[in-house]
């Protein structure tokens, strides 16, 4: 540890004075950014444990007699939160599988220089990145199909992502072609080659795209807001919207409180706990994917 420090110090000291000052300024800016991210998060975490009245009057306190788990109890025992969790998990998994399949499959022919019709499909796909019918025509189409209040409405229309297809295509193109030639000589069909030979060496890009799809579905609310009306089908973000944005806690969360003031205070406190509980799963999951970000994103996006 000590040796490392000494080495670094000397590396820093070896640089000209002007550079040293610039580096210090840079590190300070970076430090401010890091603190600006962490500080509000810690504030929210601490606040979620504090008695609502104390919180409103004094703010965060380390007088632990004022700490309470009420908010967590009330949020965790609320049925609608769990319905939201269950739906969000279900939709996110479905979206990841469906969208991943369609996108990764389509990227394969698009990655082959010999594929007849490549130019045609490319134009058809890329146009949709910049031009579309807009909200109302899409909404009316979904409604004509009969998918209002049907989860298919939030899963199927966006299942094919041109952007992700381009990234996967670029990644495939980086795989040595002799792999494919060897497969062709063996008489392997396209399907066999794709699933047995190509996909296994594309884990970084599969992981990256899957994570984007999962997080994207987990965190979105707009499509669910316009297409899904029944409470039993709503994903977590819509339930959260009621609590956090519209300040309308789920019935039962605060109804036992006597006065409106108490109810309002409790509703405020519930927001903190709700934020923590709802964000925890992704916060825990994402570091495990971090190792794929660099290789996956670098391969696809920089060249693409």
């Amino acid at each position: 540890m000590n040796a490392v420090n000494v080495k670094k110090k000397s590396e820093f000291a070896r640089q000209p004075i002007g550079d040293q000052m610039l580096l210090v300024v840079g590190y300070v800016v970076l430090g401010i950014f890091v603190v600006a991210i962490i500080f509000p998060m810690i504030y929210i975490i601490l606040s979620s444990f504090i008695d609502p009245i104390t919180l409103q009057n004094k703010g965060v306190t380390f007088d632990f007699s004022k700490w309470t788990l009420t908010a967590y109890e009330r949020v965790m025992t609320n049925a609608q939160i769990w319905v939201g969790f269950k739906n969000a998990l279900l939709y996110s998994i479905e979206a990841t599988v469906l969208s991943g399949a369609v996108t990764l499959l389509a990227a394969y022919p698009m990655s082959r220089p010999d594929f007849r019709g490549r130019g045609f499909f490319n134009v058809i796909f890329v146009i949709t990145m910049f031009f579309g019918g807009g909200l109302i025509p899409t909404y009316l189409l979904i409604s004509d199909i009969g998918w209002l209040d049907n989860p298919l409405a939030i899963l199927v229309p966006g299942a094919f992502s041109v952007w992700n297809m381009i990234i996967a295509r670029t990644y495939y193109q980086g795989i040595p072609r002799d792999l494919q030639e060897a497969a062709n000589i063996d008489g392997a069909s396209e399907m066999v080659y794709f699933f047995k030979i190509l996909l296994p060496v594309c884990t970084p890009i599969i992981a990256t795209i899957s994570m984007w799809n999962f997080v994207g579905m987990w965190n979105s609310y707009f499509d669910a807001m316009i297409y899904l009306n029944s409470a039993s089908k709503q994903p977590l973000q819509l339930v959260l919207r009621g609590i956090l944005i519209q300040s309308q806690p789920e019935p039962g969360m605060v109804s036992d409180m006597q006065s409106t003031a108490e109810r309002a205070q409790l509703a405020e406190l519930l927001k903190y706990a709700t934020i923590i509980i709802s964000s925890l799963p992704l916060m825990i999951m994402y570091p495990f994917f971090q190792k794929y970000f660099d290789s996956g994103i670098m391969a696809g996006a920089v060249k693409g």
Partner: protein
Amino acid sequence: MSKPSTNVTARKSGSAWIRSTLVYVRQHWQLYLFFIMPAFLLTIIFRYIPMGGIAIAFTNYNPFQGIFGSEWVGFSHFERFLSSPDFMSYLLNTLKLSIYGLLWGFPAPILLAFLLNRIISKSKKQKIQLVLYMPNFISVIVLCGIVRILLSPTGMVNMLLGTNYNFMTMPEAFRTIYIASGIWQGAGWGSIIYTAALSNASKELKEAAVIDGANIIQQIKTVEWPAIKDTVLIQFVMSVGNIMSVGFEKAYALQTDLNMGASEIISTYVYKKGIIDGDYGFSTAVGLFNTVINVILLLSMNAIVKKMNDGKGI
């Protein structure tokens, strides 16, 4: 020079080309049926059919009569929107939100990437990146929930300032809130692509520059900037192409009755007019207006970049 002759051969061998394509398709039918077909059908149904639905913008659309049964009104929806007193306000709100957002938000990840690139210790860099990426995984709703909590009259910001402003009801605060929270959430994640490009910068070139006594500014000028220039340009064109499609989700979640003067943008207006009020024709027209401006911006931006970048656009 050789172009005309290739054209002639192409024309001559037209039928041969068709034949060879047929052979190709027969040999590689799996590529068409299993690989490309699902994506193609989804694109046609959910992207191109709605484009046909744009015709709704020229009718007094009635769901029971369909597009052709509904009364044809020509450009009257566009006239109504363009001459309405709110038009300028919505358009300016949209443009200001995205242009200011671009001015502040675009350089932020590039700056972060340069700073991260100066951290020698790998493990420290990784830890900092872990923190910087984190906000990206918070949902729009939770982000806006946090913003509302921190900015409430009794919230953290007011406590630190010793004041009790209600920021969420102030139209003049809306854009700052929107853009600052966007940088808070997205700058770290946005830096990944530049960090990746920077790591492609030639190590030898950098070492040579250091040996030659280049200071940091000179290193950035000669080694690092050239390594990320193309990425920056592409990202910039893409961002400009998205100027008119500033996120509905966040603007809507940060809207309050009182900050509407700054927070009502075209996309939120389209949603309210169309989905909530059911004024389909008018709402589609407003949305189309938005898309067309967007496409014009993208094409002109691409042309400018092409000129600046020796004929290379996207």
